[in-house]
């Protein structure tokens, strides 16, 4: 269990960083123009960080989780809906727990 003061310190710091990203883009534009190169860096990083989190999750878990993520990606390709891919993954993981393990 994480102790409460540290937990709230972490939440506060994360909120501060998030606010920084919200105001940072417009603030920077007061002084310089965001170059196309920097824009591409930020775009590529945004997709990369999410993919890296998924891969790390898969490395730390087993077949059930890998199957769920696989189904989510297939459903996303088919429906282009993040909600349906979440639902599909949830159902597969729940079904796996009930039927297999």
């Amino acid at each position: 269990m994480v102790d409460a003061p540290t937990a709230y310190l972490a939440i506060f710091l994360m909120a501060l960083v998030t606010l920084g990203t919200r105001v940072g883009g417009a603030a920077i534009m007061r002084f310089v123009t965001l170059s196309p190169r920097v824009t591409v860096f930020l775009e590529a990083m945004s997709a990369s960080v999410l993919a890296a989190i998924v891969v790390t999750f898969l490395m730390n878990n087993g077949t059930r989780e890998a199957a769920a993520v696989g189904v989510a990606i297939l459903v996303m390709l088919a429906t282009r809906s993040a909600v349906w891919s979440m639902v599909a993954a949830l159902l597969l993981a729940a079904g796996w727990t009930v039927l297999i393990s």
Partner: protein
Amino acid sequence: MADASVTSTIRPIFTFRGLTRGAQRLLPVSVFVLPFGIAYGAAAIDAGMTIDQAMVASLVMFAGASQFAALDLWQTPLPLLSLMLVVLAVNARHLILGAAISPYVNPLPAHHWLGALMLLSDVNFADSYKAMKDGERDAAHILGGGLMLWCVWAIATAIGVFAGSALGNLERFGVDVVMAAFFGALTLGMVPNLRRAIPVAVACAVAVVTLPILPAGWNIITAALAGGFVGMLDPKAVREAG
């Protein structure tokens, strides 16, 4: 991207009417935030956050993807620096949104400027940016949309945390895979073609290789930076962004 030629001609205002307009326009869309918020609330309880902590996180952060990402690192002792850097990397796309909308907010006085940007997210950006291109000049429109999403996000989190604590052991319902599924789907949505998938593939490889050798979360930060740098090497992407 921001068009330098319009900067001098925009005279933005910031009124309560603009705020309600922005809020009303996002009322239907905000329904789609509900499943994510409920999933986050349940996953937060599953990860060991208390009801209060998960609620406070949703209220003060209001950034779903980064809140999910933080759950992955919610362990004892809390890796504060890793948490901050992962949240920074996940929310870095806000910088692009803020830069794009800057001509419509930067002429405002500081308190209105902060108000317009404090709840900036993908959804209200998309709506307000389009409205402003079509002639809307009330920057409170962005805050109004943000407030609508923020309310729904908080309500949904509340439903999720109470359902989570009432039901216990949420893994049997599959809640533990929701984050990875959501991120997998989001990544796919951000990669329009195979060429744009190259930096993402490099990032995945870096994340795998560095996972056993770096402290918690740092493999993700390293991978994100690697993906960003590889992305910059694509001259076509740079041309398209210019």
